[in-house]
């Protein structure tokens, strides 16, 4: 595999990176002490209007690991994930409280440009959402809008190879992305995310629209991508979390008696995945992972 065209992601971008619009690729010096925590989340709450969707989350997401967020529907795990690349900014009523540090830098500081944040922190969505364009153009779009000065053909090929899609599409790069199957479309979306060379890939239930075979392919792919990227995945599927992730966060809803009995999400337990599944510390986690609840 031509790993050279896509350089391994940089572990610790310097603080200024996010403040510059459309920054080219940078190669900062990794700081071993700092390098572990990609996201340092402290007392994070996300509200829609005045209703909190998820409250008081404190957790650290480590570099090079796959972190799974599990929990019942509506517990705010997708909301939490979307706050990592400021996709919640797009919802006018959404508000974020607490701090979210990305390599030590406040992601929600006033001078941080969300466009630059999203360049460094890619995202794959629940429903495959390729652009209504050719397969090639889907992958090339990110590098083009980011003004990356690279050999586009080579980058498209490398990205498709890394997403394990190249062999299936090499002869029809100009065909519409909609001619692909659902699983292929999702791998195309992963290739598209890789092409801009992010540090982190966020995945919001990436397999929920896919059949078991396509799901297995995506899971294999995640394991391979883990070598170069930090991955955070939201999943409904506990087996999937157990299979692919290094660490698992269990989130569930709780009634807030102080907020008009409105339900909002809480982080119950966050630990190594085998710990969460074999030896959970909280009874609610145990109930959930053993299928007694949710």
């Amino acid at each position, binding site marked *: 595999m031509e790993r050279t065209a896509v350089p391994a992601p940089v572990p610790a971008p310097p603080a200024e990176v996010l403040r510059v619009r459309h920054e080219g690729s940078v190669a900062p010096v990794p700081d071993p002490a700092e390098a572990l925590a990609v996201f340092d989340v402290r007392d994070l709450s996300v509200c829609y209007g005045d209703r909190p969707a998820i409250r008081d989350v404190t957790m650290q997401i480590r570099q090079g690991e796959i972190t799974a967020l599990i929990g019942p529907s509506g517990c705010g795990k997708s909301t939490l994930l979307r706050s990592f690349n400021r996709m919640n900014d797009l919802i*006018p009523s959404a508000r974020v409280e607490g701090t979210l540090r990305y390599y030590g830098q406040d992601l929600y500081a006033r001078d941080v440009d969300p466009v630059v944040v999203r360049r460094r922190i890619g*995202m794959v969505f629940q429903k495959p959402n390729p652009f209504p364009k050719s397969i090639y153009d889907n992958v090339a779009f990110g590098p083009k809008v980011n003004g990356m000065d690279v050999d586009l053909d080579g980058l498209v090929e490398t990205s498709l190879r890394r997403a394990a899609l190249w062999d299936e599409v090499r002869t029809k790069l100009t065909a519409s992305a909609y001619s692909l199957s659902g699983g292929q479309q999702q791998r195309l979306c992963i290739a598209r995310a890789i092409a801009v060379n992010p540090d982190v890939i966020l995945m919001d239930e990436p397999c929920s629209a896919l059949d078991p075979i396509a799901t297995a392919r995506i899971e294999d792919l995640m394991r391979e991508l883990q070598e170069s990227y930090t991955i955070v995945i939201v999943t409904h599927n506990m087996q999937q979390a157990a299979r692919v992730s290094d660490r698992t966060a269990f989130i569930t809803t709780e009634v807030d008696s102080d907020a008009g009995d409105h339900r909002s999400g809480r982080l119950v337990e966050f630990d190594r995945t085998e710990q969460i599944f074999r030896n959970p510390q909280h009874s609610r986690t145990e109930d959930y992972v053993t299928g007694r609840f949710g």
Partner: protein
Amino acid sequence: MTMHTPQVSARRAVAALDAPTSRGFRERAFAGLLFAATIVGVLVLAVLLVDVVVDGVGRLRPEFLGRYASRFPDRTGIRAGLTGSLSLLVLVALVAFPLGVGAAIYLEEFAPDNRFTRLMEANIANLAGVPSVVYGLLGAAVFVYILQMGRSLISGALTLSLLVLPVVIVAGREALRAVPRGIRDGGLALGATPWQVTARQVLPAALPGIMTGVILALSRAVGETAPVLLVGALFSRRASNEPWSVLESFSALPVEIFNFVSRPQEAFKVEVASAAILVLLALLLVMNSVAILLRNRFQRRW
């Protein structure tokens, strides 16, 4: 209580299916009424069309399209109206497309959700329902007199542009709204700016729908009579005026038809007017076909 053998039940069931009921009759009568309602409109239209074709087809000759109007039915033509209408078409498209699509993009992709935006939206929706005569009066006042453009082609084009603008904006917004949220999210998640996502993904995806709306709006503009009359479209133009600028006087097909019909001679009133109507209908038919073709060709792919 009587016991029913299976045979008896079966016989009863068959009898029930056969029996003509009043409900069946009423249903059929109702369906017949609905069919009649449908057919009345279509029939009347067909009769009108046949009548126009019978009256006008004899005068449809190439010279008829190429000549300016004359006092003599055999020498008259609709060149002024045809060139005028086609010029209006192009100019209205040039004005209404960028303004209308620009407004649609702003309202759909960038406008904050506040009272001012909602006020503008309500305004635009209401403007679409304003009678065309009112636009004609507005055009006459603003373009012809205040802006001193005179009774010119550009006055007519701007007036018609105002007329179709609300329709273009509404059609444009609908086409933009039909583009799924996932495409915007996908683009933004790659680090594209909102503007890049709009320009490179959302707008191209919505363009066929926008074009369909624009063409239908234009075909409405081409058929309008009142506004162009009010901004002073002439019945005809002297041949010596060629080539003409947008500041010169103009004519339009509906205006010429209006004039032909109001003449005393049968040959003008019936035959020449019908021939001109056929040309106008053909023009509208072509435009609507293009709109339908566009819509079918680029059916939603998501």
